[in-house]
């Protein structure tokens, strides 16, 4: 019934006391938010905590939230910030390396093209799908946090540069160079995992 309403209309209804409207918002974004967090955090307990905190934050901001502002990027901004906080706190108190922040300042699109041209990136036929998935998960998990975040937002969530800049609070130029760095990083690591230079 509420499916035809826009996010803004749902938020207005919720502000007026309609709890079902909020449930519709949760249903609308639960899967994309959850899959983003699963890929970004790779730890179920943190995923669940951040998922809940994100919607709690929306609840806390319901009176002040500008309903004309797109909700999806806002939710991802909150989720990304809380996820980064969770990782940093874990990093502070854990001996395990969670990946440093990578500097993406010097990477140009030419570097990306060169890297892509240098490697054979398809795994051999003997590698099973499960093994491929395991290798990819490993590379993503070990990626520096800022590169992992941008790759997931761009590839899986298909946010625009503008929205990614909002979500990550960085200029659009930095979004682009960071995405280039992330592609380079993944290509190099993927090649190393498969060890088959072109």
């Amino acid at each position, binding site marked *: 019934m509420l499916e035809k309403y826009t996010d803004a209309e749902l938020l207005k209804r919720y502000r007026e006391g309609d*709890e079902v409207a909020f449930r519709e918002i949760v249903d609308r974004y639960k899967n994309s938010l*959850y899959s983003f967090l699963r890929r970004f955090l790779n730890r179920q307990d943190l995923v669940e905590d951040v998922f809940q905190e994100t*919607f709690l934050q929306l609840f806390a901001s319901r009176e002040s939230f500008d309903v004309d502002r797109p909700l999806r990027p806002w939710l991802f901004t909150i989720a990304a910030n809380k996820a980064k906080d969770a990782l940093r706190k874990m990093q502070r108190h854990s001996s395990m390396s969670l990946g440093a922040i990578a500097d993406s300042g010097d990477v140009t*699109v030419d570097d990306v093209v060169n890297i892509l041209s240098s490697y054979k*990136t398809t795994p051999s036929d003997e590698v099973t799908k499960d093994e491929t*998935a395991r290798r990819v998960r490993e590379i993503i998990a070990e990626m520096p946090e800022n590169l992992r975040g941008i790759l997931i937002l761009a590839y899986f969530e298909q946010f625009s540069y503008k929205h990614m800049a909002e979500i990550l609070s960085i200029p659009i130029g930095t979004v682009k160079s960071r995405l280039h760095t992330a592609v380079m990083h993944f290509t190099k690591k*993927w090649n190393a995992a498969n060890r088959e230079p072109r």
Partner: protein
Amino acid sequence: MGSLSKEDKDIILDFYFRCGDEETINRGRDLVASNPEAAILYARLEETLTQLDSIKYEPCPDNLVELTVARLKLAASSGQTQLAALLELERQKGEGLGEFETEPTETEDEDAAVLTSSKWAFSENFFKLSSLAAVILITAGIAWPTLRNVRQAAWRITCSRHLNTLGAGLVRYAADNEDAIPYAAGTGGSQWARIGEQGSITSSPFLLLKGNYADAEDFICPGHSGATAMKCGTEELARLQDFASRANFSYSFRVLCENSDRRLSVVRGPILVDMSPVFQPLCTKSSAGPIELNEDLLNCCSNNHGCRGQNVLFTDGSVKFMKVRLLGDDDIFTIRDVKIYFGNESPRDPQDIFLP
């Protein structure tokens, strides 16, 4: 890629990710369609990044949605104060990663932790913890089936209260026994894995039950699946040397070095902790072979609280919830440099804390 300008390459990347504006995406589409080099670059991008699709899409579990909605309803019905409390709880949970969740004591420096009766403000702690537990339990009662986190928080608090009570029992025991901590002879090199026999891992804390320093229920963490408080009459209790099974004791008791000083005022650091996740096969199955540590065994926390951490009773009387099993660089569940356990090991170094 010689004929492609830097701008062309940028456009192809924008087109691939669909990140640019509509005009750029359309230009990228045209470029790939008309320029073979652009098509090759696009194909290489796809060839590489399509590997990402091997990570399966995972939909959000229903119970997480229910839990989230229940918490929001709870927050809405309880007003801003409740919400602020929930958010504060979440904040503290986050900050507590790897740290202790209870209030820090003045004895954070473990070296300074010397047990004195005056430090054990049990009545006060009991009152505070009971009040807190009551608030959380009432809150959980509103939406019990879905408020898993709240329920776990309540269990942690109850567990913490039980450890406080056991700590009080330890003090009274020590006061009656020349400052000695409970020690069933043979704890050091004997088979601590043989539950039911003197010298087992549970026979030392069993002395607290036997001597009426604590009740059978105090040895049970509510998060310990399958646990049951030991039930037996006074006469039978007097005859026994140990709990009947591991299910009667939800915690792990410290194994000290052989011949070490066992006075409560001398022993420092943890003395009781939520049950070790490492050695239960040794303690529950007589046929279990030696335990060899592996990555999983080295990284998991106690199962009592969903592998999210463990309550620890320190000899200074404090109870703290640790989200990791390391104290400094010391793993409290294993002996340093020992990888294979037969159930009779004890640490060689007094600084090496071991709670199997």
